[in-house]
């Protein structure tokens, strides 16, 4: 059984594409389209890695990091996907405990490599 990845992104097309690529890369992927779903999922289960978009409805990527690190006290690696030019958010994400980030447009293969690196670090 592959490693579990929580993919949190409200963009259905991109999420579907990344989901496909990660599954093809041997990961077990759970996709959540908004912050509420992410929170619900995390209450029941903790994945091996979280890949989250910064801009999400209800619960942003920044809030997600804060929730995981401070409320759940988990050290699960978190990779943030952000738009180019969103530097301040990325810095905040790192301050709160994000492990890595990728900017849009995303190269699915690059993301896969980063996930592998974070999981097997």
């Amino acid at each position, binding site marked *: 059984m592959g490693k579990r990845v929580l993919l949190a992104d409200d963009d259905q097309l991109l999420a579907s594409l990344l989901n496909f*690529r990660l599954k093809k890369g041997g990961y077990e992927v759970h996709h959540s389209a908004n912050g509420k779903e992410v929170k619900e999922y995390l209450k029941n289960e903790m994945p091996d890695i979280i890949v989250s978009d910064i801009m999400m409805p209800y619960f942003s990527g920044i809030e997600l990091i804060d929730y995981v690190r401070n409320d759940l006290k988990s050290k699960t690696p978190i990779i943030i996907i952000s738009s180019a030019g969103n530097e301040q958010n990325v810095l905040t994400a790192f301050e709160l405990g994000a492990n890595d980030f990728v900017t849009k*447009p995303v190269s699915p293969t690059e993301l896969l490599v980063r996930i592998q690196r974070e999981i097997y670090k």
Partner: protein
Amino acid sequence: MIIPPSQIKISLITAPEFNLEYLWWLTILFFVLAVTYLIGVFIIRNKIKLKNSRTKEKKIEFSPMINEFLFYEDSNTKEEKMNYLNLKIQIRELIKNTFDRDVLTEVLLDLRKDLSGNSQKVLINLYKDLGLHHDAYEKLRSKKWQVVSSGILELTTMEVEDSYGLIIKFINHRQRTIRKQAEIAIVSLKKEGVRYFLDNTKYKIAEWQQLKLLDVLRHKPNYTPPQFALWLTSTNAHVVLFALRLIKYYSQNDAEQSIITLLMHKERDIQAEAIECIKDFHFVNALPTLKLVYPKASHDIKIAILDAIGELGTIADVPFLENLQRTERNFNIKSKVIGTLNKIDPESILPTTNISSPDFYDVEGEILDHVNDQEIIDKEVLKEETILESELQPEEIKKKDALDHIDFNFLPDLIDEDVVKQSNQVVITVHDLEPDHDLEEVLSFNFLPLIIDETTFQDKDQSTEQDDFEPIFVLNDLPVEEEHIDITIGQQNGASDININNLDGSFLNKKATNKGEIKNASAEETLISFENERVSFSPNFMCQEELDAMVLLENISELGDCRELLLLYQIIEAHSSDVVIDRANELIQKFSYESLRPGELFSENYNLAESVFTDVYHLADHETKLLLLDEMMNVGDHKEIHLLEGILDSTSKSLVKKATKVLEHIKSQTSVATEAPISTLKEDFFFKVDFELELNEPTEYKGTAPINNGYTLFDQLCSMSNSLYNKING
């Protein structure tokens, strides 16, 4: 004839007759319209919602297919390859439907924005393989500008190079959005696109568009820019400007002469950009042209030129800048000129504003004199000691060395009166001993050294140094360290006189063995007295008249201005006290350079002598200039004549025509005004002050005051604004 009441009609009071039937019809009509509108909105909303829902479903349907296509690898299993082929057939069937084609195109365009790397390339190839770009070509033929624009955008996003030939014809399209989209398309689709664009564009290239085009060029992989200097000769000023910016961005410094020539371009933006290039590439040869262009340049360009001269200039350019410093009237430019001068030749111009004249610091000179005197005395004393030591015999030297090792701290300080006398400067006399003193008490102290209790002396010194107290009576302005005591004690009619130069505060703590009073040699009043071995002070009061004058002078200093000059001269005349005269002179000096006199203000050397429209006019565009001329017609006066005469030399006929008209009008106005009885408008009439200053003695000024116009700059400006207001409002 009497009209019966039944025939009288009061039509104004009677309500107008209204057919109720029409009212009902109108109500029904509006009701039907409202229902139709609501139904229409409902239908359209549902249609859009349905379409979105269908699109979403289709997107979900297409998504896995696209994923399969995107991540297909030759290393896939046979089953996967079969699946891939089936999907290809399936998708080709699907895109036969227009709606499906549109959705698929939309999906691919969305993903194109979110993906990079190899996936992006695969996506673009898929778009072309499926022939979706043909739909975009169709869009280019549409008559709707938004459809054409979206077609160009689609082809640009999907990097369909074949569409280049179709898009270039839109480069000079009259519709702005299509034109801009086409510009970006041809620059991004092919490397030679930027050449074609710069060669052929006839329209303005907006600032934002220039940024976007530059961004496109920046992100082009392996891009070798052409020599943009080729387009500096373009007839389209916007192309020249854009070319200059590209030259600067790509640091193409091989067009020195062209860029220098562009300094003389009529467009300010081009001038400014050329100056920036010159600065960046350090074209020193541009300096003569910069100076040549300067006089007729606008405000911003002047600043930019000065900045460039500051960067490139040498000492040889200093005379040009010094000349500008003298002639330039605009504050900002003048400041820039000074800054540039100091940049080329550091500290060639020192601060001048609000700097007091050296005379103001004369006190410092006095202090220096005292310090020098002290140094001379110290040297003399040291010399004498050295001579004395050299005269000592060997045995005596031994004794002296032995004595040097003994600690004499337990002994009181003994000061030789002669030494004290030598170092004295100011003489203070102690006399007026009480006549009933016994002869034993009235002694001559000539034979005695002055004895000072060391502890008291040190305590006093420490307290003086450590505490920031202010003495009630300042005996001397000089620091304690620089003071010397000289006491001469003599006997005259049973009284002892002590002359003290520069009385030190610490001296007051010394125990005086005789009763006496210390007097300042220059003043008759008793300042300090010694009674029963204690020191007491007596204040030196001014006489009432002097005090009143000083109070008045302080009030003038606080509240007055140059109008008080006359009064100040009167005070000087009326008083003999040095303190009063000095203070009055200080105030005269203060008010004399405080503000310009109205006469000076409107002299030819001063700005206000010229039209207030001058600066605004020279910076304005044509329409604004015409408006300003209208304003001059309404509110202008003789000060505008010089400006208007200058406008008559202008090349614009409309300006010359209007200026001539205004000039004639103003001249006629001026001639009318000069004929008016000016004698009644004497300044004294307006600015007469109807109050009398309280002086003890009414004095009459006999001297000549430097300025007779007794009104301030503020008054003058107020009167100016009033006259302007009156002119505007007739």
